[in-house]
Every structure is written in structure tokens, then in C-alpha cells.
């Protein structure tokens, strides 16, 4: 295994452990907002972000922890944000659903499904205009592609040939509703209708195949200013929102998780255990930073409204 593979696995494990910490903390109500966990979906996020440069920008959804950390977001500022503290990246105003970290390129996370397609499109247009060689990555779930704005944005980014990669995490669920109840199209055929290159990543646990599929499209976006769609088959381990499991609920196949867990390198790769101590220490420090920080003052309430 290469160094870079090790690093990616380590980074993915770090995200996993951060969210496990959130699970542990959640019942104590120090985090008083909904959390949408990425557990099960970390590794491909890390692998994809490894193909980006710091100046490339990312837009994503309420399920924002993985993208935040993978794009270089600061862990202290993240925990402080979850705790609703003044030292949070957005002074507590954003919370878990709206993480952002502009200095490393995470430009926002929307709790309105589908909203970020067009934000990413606008940002990519700016890149194209400025000819700065940067690209934009837009990371959402497959449910988001049902919103009309997806069609509008595919059309526009193909029309203008924007340096923009739409990454669709297909975990088969929108909240609790399976794909078959919602979609009559295959994403590949849809992308092709706009002549947008498409790649499917079947195995979201295999770094090599992720990189092999994504790299050409990302490079083409950068060098030839072309949009792309990348779909990833993935699996959400936890419930849609919150820290529990929901595998035996209606609409979910209780047995599927074992299949995923059995192949999940973050679980099966015992070599990774070597990283656990230092990651734990880092997380504890971030939690400690959050705990020690102050809550925002009253005058924060009306600050930054136009």
C-alpha cells in the first residue's frame, strides 16, 4: 500500500472517529442541533478530495462533516461550531448542517436539498472567467438529483462547459425512502443526454478504483474546462439524522449493513489501529477547545444581517 493510500485511510478513519465522538457526546446535549452522519461514506470523500487543490472549491449538503474534514477544515473550529460556541467556524450560527471552511475551499453546505448545484455552477463560471485553473466539486446525495435544479445546472454547465464535477453519493435513500419510489432515470443516461462525461464508482471502499474513475474527469475539468458527473454507490450506516441505527426499519434491508461492514477498510484493516491514539488525542483536544470556548454574546444575534 502506498503512502498516499495510508494517508487517505488515516484521514477517513479520523472522520469516522470524529463522528463516533459525536455519537458519544450527543446524548449529553452539548450538541444541540440535528446531525447527519457520514459514517460509511468517508473514504470516497477523502479519496476524491485528494484529487483537488486547496484553491479548488467544494459545495455540499447538511451531511457535511466528511467533506469539511477531507477538504482540510479545522477540527477545533468544527467542534466549537457543533457546540454552538463563539469560536466555531461560523460563531455557532451554522452548526452541523452548514459547515464551511473557505480558507481551504469548503464554500458552504446547504440543508435545502439540491440548492448547492447552482452555487457550484456559479463558482465554476467564475473560475472559467478568471481562467485560474481551479475547479469546483459539488457533493450531494442521489435524492438531490430529483430536484429540477439538477437538470437546469447540468444543462447550463454543459452549455458553458464549466470546470465542475458533480459527485453524487448514491446511498439509495432519501431520509427513509428508497430510490425505487423516487427515480425513474439512471444518472448515467441523464448525464449523457447533456453530453456530460459520467463515471460510476461501484466500490466506494477501493481507493484505486475511485481514483482511476475520478482522476480523468477531474483532470479534464481542470485542463479542458468540462463538467462531469461521478456517481458513487455507497451506504449510510446510521439513520438519516441523528446518531442511532435504523436498519430494521421499514424501507431498509437489515442485512445489508453486515455486507458493507465486512468490506469496510476502516473496520477490517487492523493496521489502521496504529493511528487511533493520535487521532483520539486530536479529537479530545478539539472537544476540549469547544468546551472551554465561550457562547456567543447577545450582540452576535443581529450581527452580519444585511
Amino acid at each position: 500500500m502506498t503512502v498516499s493510500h495510508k494517508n487517505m485511510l488515516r484521514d477517513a478513519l479520523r472522520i469516522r472517529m470524529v463522528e463516533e465522538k459525536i455519537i458519544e457526546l450527543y446524548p449529553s446535549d452539548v450538541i444541540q442541533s440535528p446531525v447527519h452522519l457520514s459514517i460509511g461514506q468517508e473514504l470516497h470523500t477523502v479519496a476524491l478530495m485528494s484529487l483537488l487543490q486547496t484553491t479548488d472549491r467544494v459545495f455540499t449538503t447538511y451531511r457535511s462533516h466528511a467533506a469539511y474534514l477531507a477538504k482540510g477544515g479545522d477540527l477545533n473550529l468544527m467542534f466549537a461550531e457543533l457546540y454552538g460556541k463563539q469560536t466555531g467556524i461560523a460563531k455557532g450560527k451554522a452548526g452541523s448542517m452548514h459547515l464551511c471552511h473557505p480558507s481551504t475551499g469548503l464554500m458552504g453546505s446547504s440543508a435545502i436539498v439540491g440548492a448547492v448545484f447552482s452555487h457550484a455552477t456559479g463558482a465554476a463560471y467564475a473560475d472559467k472567467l478568471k481562467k485560474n485553473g481551479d475547479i469546483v466539486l459539488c457533493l450531494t446525495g442521489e435524492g438531490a438529483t430529483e430536484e429540477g435544479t439538477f437538470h437546469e445546472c447540468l444543462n447550463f454547465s454543459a452549455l458553458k462547459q464549466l470546470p465542475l464535477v458533480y459527485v453524487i453519493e448514491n446511498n439509495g435513500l432519501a431520509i427513509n425512502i428508497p430510490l425505487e419510489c423516487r427515480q425513474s432515470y439512471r444518472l448515467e443516461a441523464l448525464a449523457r443526454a447533456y453530453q456530460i462525461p459520467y463515471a460510476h464508482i461501484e466500490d466506494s471502499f477501493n481507493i484505486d478504483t475511485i481514483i482511476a474513475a475520478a482522476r480523468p474527469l477531474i483532470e479534464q475539468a481542470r485542463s479542458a474546462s468540462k463538467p462531469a458527473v461521478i456517481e458513487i454507490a455507497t451506504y449510510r450506516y446510521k439513520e438519516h439524522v441523528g446518531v442511532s441505527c435504523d436498519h430494521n426499519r421499514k424501507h431498509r434491508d437489515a442485512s445489508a449493513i453486515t455486507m458493507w461492514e465486512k468490506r469496510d477498510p476502516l473496520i477490517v484493516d487492523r493496521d489502521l489501529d496504529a493511528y487511533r491514539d493520535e487521532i483520539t488525542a486530536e479529537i479530545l483536544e478539539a472537544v476540549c477547545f469547544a468546551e472551554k470556548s465561550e457562547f456567543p454574546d447577545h450582540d452576535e444575534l443581529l450581527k452580519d444581517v444585511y
Partner: protein
Amino acid sequence: MKTDTYRGAITRAMRHAMEKNERTILFGQGVTDHVGILGTTLNLEKEFGSDRVFETPLAEDSMTGFALGASLSGLYPIHVHIRADFMLLAMNQLVNSIAKYRYMYGGLFATPMLIRSIVGRSWGQGAQHSQSLQALFAHIPGIYVVMPSSARTAYATYIYANSACASPVVSLEHRLLYDYSFDRKDDEDVIFYPFTSFRVRQGGDVTIVATSIMVEEAIRAANYVKEMTGLDAEIIDLHCISHPDENLIIESVRKTGRLIVADTGWESFGVCAEIARIIATREPNVLRAPIKCLSLAKAPCPTAHRLEHWYYPDMANLVDSIYSLCFDRFDHGKQLPSEEYVKEVHKTFKGPF
């Protein structure tokens, strides 16, 4: 006396709509899952079939236009949004099509339908999952906009809408009311005309016009103030935001001379403004003091709990407003209810939703 929760009343209204009116269809994201729109649509798919109770893709604009097309074809659509914020994706269909269809075509069409949506306030919902957008809908002629504040008004409104009325109705339910218990009156199943406002408490010292959960807060505040000082607040549940009972409001303020408006939304161009308009264009001299408005801070909703606490007006703010109006001074010196007492209800709320 029997009691009924808000959730229970809405659930019964949904089942009633499906049973009594075979033209009713019920759809929206989450109406068939194990959560069932906070329990209000549980089992309905099984009971009434997946042709009449169904999931929709994420497509708020089109599913709203879909409701119109279905309504024009003789169905009674009930479209549910788990959060009112998502209705912003449907404004085009709501405002440009639904609110205008009957009028634009000279009365040729009827467009009965119910759009239920939930004001997501609960707990760290932040800027995009908490909005109470009644003013946006009520500004537009051609739709009834209601905000049920109790089990009874929710039930009666939905039954009436489904069985006796041909208009589009937008209802904003409040997340935090679902677990409240209300006395259940015997006549509850008799449908009353719900597109108006109701006096829910009599009093002669100050009038409180309240919407949604602020009605409950107003009742608690009024009881507290009564106990502490003997002052008596009259409370009007605005209920039908688009078609309030203007006379009821004017008559009350004529009696009390003092008015507080307590709303779940923003003040400017909102319910507070509309009530002020009713008074100021009809009888401004009934006011012995400026109107006091309790509404959201003029900002998007912050996620941090500390800020959220300041963002929303509560019962203590109401008590404070009553005192400062009735004693005609800001520093009335009266004791406010303890924080514990104020939070009594909301404190029981636990995430993640």
C-alpha cells in the same frame, strides 16, 4: 374531560379525510415511512392503498402543480411538507397558479386542496429549517392560510377543508405543538367555520393577538400575570392568517386600549404589520399606547442554542410586555417568571429532529 394531542387530532383528521372522501389523495416526502410526518400519516398507505397515499420524489414545485392538476380533475389533494422552508421551492405554483386559477378563469374552476407544512422550530434547526413563512402566503389573494394553535382548530380546519370547501388552504403546523394536550370538547366533531379568528381568553386590560404556538404562550403568560397582579389579558387566536376576524380584534382593543401581537414569524411585512394595518386603517384611536410586537429577531435563525434562545420570543417576553404596557413603563419592576417555568414546555424537546 377527554384530552387530545395536536398530533392526535391531525392524525384523526387525516384518517377522516381518507375515509369520508374517496377523492382524497395524500402525498409528500415521508408520508409512508415509519416516522409518518410526526405520526400523522402512519399506516395510511396500508389502509388506503399506495395509489392514494404515496411518496413523491424531491420535487416541491412540480408536486404543487401536480396538486393543482389533480384538484382540477376532481381529486382532493393533501400535500405535506415536513418543513415550511421547502415551500419556498413551490412559490411559483402556489402564487402564480394555485392562488389565481379560479379568478383568472372567471370562476370556471374550483381548486380545493390542503397543503400542510410544519414550522420546523424545535432545536438547532438553523436558518433553513425553522422558518415560519405565513406572511409570504397570506400576502397573496386567493389562498386561505391557517396556523392551527390547538388540537381542536387543527381538526376542525382540516375536516372543513376536505369536506365543505373548494379553496386552496395552506396550513402551517408547529413542530413544538405536537405533544401538547388540549381539552377535547364534545362538539369537536361538529365542523365549525374555521377561516376566521377566535377569542380564547376574555380579559379587559390588554389584548394579545397571537398565532400558532404563541397562543399557548400567551395563555400561560396571561394566567401568570393574572395570578401575580390580577390583570386580565384578552387573547385572540388569529388562526386564519389570511382572513382574520378584523372586528373581533378591533372590538377587543376598543375595550382594552392596549395591544400585543405575538407571532412566530418576522415582524416587518408580517403578522404584526398586518394587525397594525387593521387597526390603523380603521380605528387608530382605540390604541392608548403603541402596539407591542413579539416576533423573531430580524435575522435568519442562528443554530447555536444560546442565540436561538434570544432569537425566539417566549412567555417571559410576553409577561414583560403585558407589564410594561399596563403599567405604562418599560421598567415596571414586576417579577418575571423564572427561566425554569418559561422553558417548561420547550425544555422537554430532544433532538435530533
